[in-house]
């Protein structure tokens, strides 16, 4: 029989930490700090609206780009949080999570040979999506001494005459890094000069702990060259509802909607009705969750300080990214031993890019009681390693 598989797909780099994931899934009684989704349930009033919409029999398709009411609420939300006006009729498309928006956004703009710049460490799907879209990914290795922010000289160095898209992954998974206004302004200047398009993944925009998140699309001259991606998974604790969106220039949104129409048809109807309520009435609940995350973030930072584990202070998302280079082990070795010896699961940094060797992603989407037990065990492990060396 022939080999039926696509070379492009089989050629995608398999996740280097597959082995580690396999071990984790077999450990039943481990405490996990490895989860990239909220521990909160979706706020009840949102779930209630989902139930109500089912009771009302709203079980049909919606328009391809999403419920009109939802696109209007998304437009209102971006206006009130970022001051950017998107026309709900042709500058917004509702997708199956931010994930789909990343995928169709890249597919809508990439021609063969185009280069997509991806700063790493960052979320696992940018690189494969870029490759599947036919682009050549160009990786920027972000540096811990810059708190994993993207610096202008790093960007300039990565740009060639084939560069088309810059992916801007802030607030960042896995590092928790953010970009502040001065950082963004420098990047925007280069983007405009070099005539690039930015795909800004702002899925964690509601979860920042220093200043409010600022979108690069809100800077002068940037709205027309930015695909802004956001969604409901993180801010509203709605990961399982599979709902996100993209806002951008209408010619790009139109082509994205075309792919979405043929590949997906429309995002889940039930989730869309629930999301309208989330945007209308959710601010207070989001703020409560943000406060909780912030308490845990401070708790972990303090624990690492006491442990003398090197860790820059992250101001976004729900991750801390401590450095374990002092132990002369790879991230994967460290994570595997921590799992086997102390039964705590964390994610090796290398899951998010080769340059994250020597780091761990620790999620604080867990109760403080849970974090306390985990920290105790990590401390045991670290003490043991230090005493043996």
């Amino acid at each position: 029989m022939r080999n039926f598989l696509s070379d492009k797909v089989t050629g995608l780099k398999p996740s280097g930490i597959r082995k580690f994931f396999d071990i984790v899934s077999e450990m039943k009684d481990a405490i996990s700090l490895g989860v990239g989704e909220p521990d909160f349930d979706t706020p009840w009033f949102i779930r209630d609206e989902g139930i109500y919409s089912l009771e009302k029999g709203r079980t049909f398709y919606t328009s391809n780009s999403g419920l009109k009411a939802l696109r209007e609420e998304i437009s209102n939300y971006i206006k009130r949080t970022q001051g950017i006006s998107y026309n709900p009729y042709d500058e917004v498309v509702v997708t199956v999570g931010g994930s789909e928006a990343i995928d169709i956004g890249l597919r809508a703009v990439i021609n063969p040979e185009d280069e997509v710049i991806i700063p790493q460490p960052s979320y696992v799907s940018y690189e494969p999506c870029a490759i599947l879209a036919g682009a050549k990914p160009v990786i920027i290795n972000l540096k811990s001494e810059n708190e994993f922010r993207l610096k202008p000289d790093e960007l300039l160095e990565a740009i060639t005459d084939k560069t088309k898209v810059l992916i801007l992954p802030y607030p960042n998974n896995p590092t928790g890094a953010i970009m502040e206004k001065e950082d963004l302004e420098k990047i925007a200047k280069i983007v405009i000069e070099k005539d690039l398009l930015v795909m800004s993944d702002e899925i964690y925009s509601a979860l920042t702990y220093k200043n409010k998140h600022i979108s690069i699309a809100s800077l002068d001259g940037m709205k027309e060259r930015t695909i802004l991606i956001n969604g409901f998974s993180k801010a509203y604790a709605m990961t399982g509802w599979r709902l996100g969106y993209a806002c951008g220039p209408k010619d790009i949104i139109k082509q994205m909607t075309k792919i979405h129409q043929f590949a997906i048809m429309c995002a889940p109807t039930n989730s869309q009705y629930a999301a309208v309520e989330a945007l209308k009435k959710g601010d207070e609940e989001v703020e409560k969750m943000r406060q909780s995350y912030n308490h845990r973030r401070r708790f972990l930072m303090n624990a690492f300080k006491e442990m003398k584990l090197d860790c820059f202070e992250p101001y976004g998302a729900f991750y801390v990214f401590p450095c374990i280079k002092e132990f002369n082990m790879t991230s994967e070795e460290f994570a595997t031993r921590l799992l086997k010896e102390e039964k705590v699961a964390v994610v090796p940094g290398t899951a998010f890019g080769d340059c994250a060797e020597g780091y761990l992603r620790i999620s604080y989407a867990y109760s403080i009681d849970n974090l306390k037990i985990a920290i105790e065990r990590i401390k045991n492990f670290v003490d043991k390693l230090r005493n043996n060396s």
Partner: protein
Amino acid sequence: MNDKMRDELLSILEKNSRIDFKELSVVLGATEEEVLEEISKLEKENIICAYHTLINWEKTDIEKVTALIEVKVTPQRGQGFDHIAERIYNYPEVKSVYLISGGYDLLVTLEEKSLKEIAAFVSDKLSTLDSVLSTATHFILKKYKDHGSLINETSKDEREVIIP
């Protein structure tokens, strides 16, 4: 301490009054002294009134019966409901007294060892007060949720162990 942080402190303490000062100061991003000072201020101002523990008595061998009693009263000149409320809340077996809008005036919760004792309290003490016009007593059969906490259920983390 600013108001925003004070509100955060209160909502943390409302859920967990046993949290220690050190942890409280860490999660709030304040010093231990600031937290201590604020708490003693809140206690003095009677904003923090007491520290309670939520106990599921059903799991012990101690008998407790709780009743909610709706009370209609005639308010007294010059004092409104406050005087009669005081007469009622002074009984130690009374757990709470609220002034209520709607069909009746006061909602009284009462905790006793048995139905009989509750009945005795209502007929001998409550109903005989001058300004009490009528009472309606409801017994609690089962508690599902109290003070924002579920009584019997503990929630389980059903997420996958590792998610990128």
